[in-house]
């Protein structure tokens, strides 16, 4: 195989760093509103019919949306094996909680309306709420920890060791900055769910979703700006020291790493990246305005812009770091030393270039077929076939 030399190792690493972002953003844009809708369910649906309207706005699409999450896991495994290995074993119990939510949620969707007893349905509604809100919070918490650096090191054989007893590992994740990041992600996804219901629902459900969604948009902006201030004044960043190869073998122990004054020095080195946080803040503010004034499709687009801006700002600020180690600096994972081999990255890119456009194409078609509002009349008339 000589074909893979067509694209340099360095370029492939940057491309895969970008694709990692694409997957995370794809997940947040699609499954994000499913989680947001789940978190909103008890507050925007008061009667059983209203709740079924809420659930059926995402009913036919959540399953496809969730694949972004699964693909995210698979792609990290294939393109960034050390990241996959360290993060999932390090955040072990938190990952379990997220998985538990993602296990319960599909079942809750499918089974909730298969029996008529109010108690049965109330329990599944509760399950939908928890399985929407908890992962939405924890994803932010995880990112908040990655930004601060995570306590792990590699042995010479590259066995990943995550420091601390099990309770310290789990509760250590719930530190103030990480919780702030969790508030950003939760409120952002609730805003997104509100914008989605603004498009797909009508009447009382839509009005409640807009009211809560607009509050969430403001909370998201405030928490995001606060986190930015924290990064500027209250937290050191990381930097690579000395010479390093961007196309060398993927061994995290090959680099020297030190703390830097602040992550935000990236904005001094690469001023253009400021576009990301600006998109995040402006997008969320426009979503707020849109939700208040009752615009539908444009509000959903602004909400997407906000999510795109917020998530990409994290990646762009940390570049080239992916997951710094707070206890053993040289174990930190960067774009240049924790990818798959040149050949694997190339093959995976080849597969992505073929399949990702197809996925986007048929997903758009499905959304188009399902276009239109879900009404209470729909739920009454199609009681059997709907959720």
């Amino acid at each position: 195989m000589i074909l893979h030399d067509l694209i340099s190792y360095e370029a492939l690493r940057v491309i895969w760093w970008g694709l990692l972002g694409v997957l995370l953003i794809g997940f947040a844009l699609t499954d994000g509103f499913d989680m947001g809708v789940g978190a909103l369910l008890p507050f925007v649906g008061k009667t059983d019919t209203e709740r079924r309207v809420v659930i059926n706005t995402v009913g036919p699409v959540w399953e496809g949306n969730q694949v972004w999450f699964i693909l995210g896991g698979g792609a990290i495994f294939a393109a960034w094996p050390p990241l996959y290995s360290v993060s999932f074993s390090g955040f072990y119990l938190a990952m379990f909680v997220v998985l538990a939510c993602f296990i319960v949620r599909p079942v809750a969707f499918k089974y909730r309306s298969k029996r008529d007893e109010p108690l049965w349905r109330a329990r599944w509604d509760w399950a939908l709420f928890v399985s929407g809100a908890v992962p939405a919070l924890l994803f932010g918490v995880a990112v908040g920890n990655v930004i601060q650096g995570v306590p792990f090191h590699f042995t010479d054989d590259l066995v990943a060791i995550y420091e601390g007893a099990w309770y310290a590992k789990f509760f250590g994740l719930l530190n103030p900055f990480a919780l702030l990041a969790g508030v950003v992600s939760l409120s952002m996804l609730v805003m997104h769910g509100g914008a989605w219901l603004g498009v797909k629902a009508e009447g009382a459900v839509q009005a409640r979703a807009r009211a809560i969604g607009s509050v969430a948009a403001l909370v998201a902006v405030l928490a995001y700006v606060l986190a930015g201030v924290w990064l500027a004044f209250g937290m050191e960043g990381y930097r690579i020291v000395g010479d390093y190869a961007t196309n060398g073998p993927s061994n995290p122990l090959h680099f020297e790493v030190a703390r830097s004054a602040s992550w935000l020095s990236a904005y001094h080195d690469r001023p253009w990246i400021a576009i990301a946080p600006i998109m995040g803040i402006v997008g969320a503010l426009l979503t707020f305005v849109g939700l208040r004034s009752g615009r539908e499709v444009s509000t959903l687009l602004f909400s997407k812009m906000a999510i795109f801006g917020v998530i990409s700002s994290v990646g762009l600020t940390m570049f080239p770091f992916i997951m710094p180690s707070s206890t053993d600096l040289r174990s930190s994972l960067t774009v240049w030393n924790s990818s798959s081999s040149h050949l694997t990255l190339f093959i995976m890119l080849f597969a992505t270039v073929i399949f990702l456009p197809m996925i986007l194409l048929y997903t758009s078609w499905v959304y188009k077929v399902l276009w239109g509002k879900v009404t209470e009349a729909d739920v009454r008339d199609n009681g059997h076939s709907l959720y």
Partner: protein
Amino acid sequence: MEFGIVELSRLQFAVTAMYHFLFVPLTLGLSILVAIMETVYVTTNRPIWRQMTKFWGTLFGINFAIGVATGLTMEFQFGMNWSYYSQYVGDIFGAPLAIEGLMAFFLEATFVGLFFFGWDKLSKVAHLCVAWLVAIGSNFSALWILIANGWMQNPVGAQFNPLTMRMEMTDFFAVLFNEVAQAKFVHTVSAGYVTASVFVIGVSAWFLLRGRHVELARRSITVGAAFGVAAAFSVVLLGDESGYNTSHSQKMKLAAIESMWDTHPAPAPFNLIGFPDQKARETHYAIKIPWVMGLIGTRSLDTQIPGINELVDKAQERIRSGQIAYKAMLEIRAKDGNVDPATETLFKDHSADLGFALLLKKYVDNPLDATDAQIKAAANDTVPQVWPLFWSFRIMVALGIGFIGTMIYFFYRASFRGMKFPRPALHLAVWMIPAPWIAAEMGWFVSEFGRQPWTVDGVLPTALSVSRLSITDVSLTLAGFVLFYTVLFIIEMSLMLKYIRKGPFQDVEETEAWTNRHTARLSGQPDGAAIAMPGE
């Protein structure tokens, strides 16, 4: 067996994988059966086939939901519980998993929603396409995960890189067209098709025994049996192919399944039954069929199949050769690859045995310090526990042969005896419903338990592959998974039974009217032929 972190992690993986595989085979097969039924509906326009599509589709949906939910765990568990494995072989193993997501999961998951919600939103043909895309998506996902699993059994197209301390891909097509993976894929999807056929026939037989939904049940049995005959032959033939592959890629697994301690002059006999004794290294009360093992394993009469004792001796040699590779690896790593060509050649010549040196890590930190006794112990570790493999394999094979017989019988009755089935046969069909699940679980057990003590055969020992978690971590999640999965399983079963008892509930009037007219027309009554009907 002492329960340390390795055993707990293995138990958790086994539990979650086996739960997951309670749902997968039915998804694989039923997706296709439903698509076939809908195809008949679209081509003949007879409402009964639409009703069948919707009825079996509902059961498919209940099963699919939990299949997806339990499958999700699998995608992340490698990183959570097998972090060194992920680091060590992620460069090869991760790729098929990611491609599975890109090619298969998106397809099935995006269209499954439209299958259930799109009846009124799509044209007939478009909806039929959706049904087939779901079926194709499910089956593609089996392809990619079995390519990944096939590589664990027969790690081709990769080599160890001392600078990155991991296996790296050298030939993607070797991984893709791995003979083990190909045989496993067809074997596994065929098992899924058999499962769905047995399920459809069994549920339909239950209807017939009660005289309910007779038209739907008879047609369903016909589709199920026709599909099932082909699938049952395929599952047994490809199982045989897998056995043949094992004879050159995983000799120890084959010898263990066969409980063949000593090398026998070719052609070796097959132990039909017997009682393997791991300590004494012999098989008590064995009933042997001459020649059969040699024929299955080598497809010849003059090729020898090595027994367990001979393979243990070979393992000792490979451990010593692995130590040479290990020493060279340390030097290459320490000097960042700048070593003399002699060391490089030395590493190259012995790197295939590097994994065997890693077996010593169970006994000493540095494999180079191992004593002769430790080397011997490590070589003995390469023998998996024999009796569970011996028996699960035989149960699986017996069931497989049973499926061929049953399917042929039902196919014959459906095709040549006017879809009339005697009551004892219907009772048998109902009782047979759990059988394909038992066979499938046994099959996975043989495949994965037989791979021990390796996660990747000959490359990475299981004991090294685990994450360095605490016993509390894994105990908590194991308890959590068991609890969650059991609750979900109970709910799933109760809903499944509820919807089976309820029977087809959609398009009832239209179907009944058509059936009455159809029966009347077949029996030659004038009012039946006089009315123009859709599709006739």
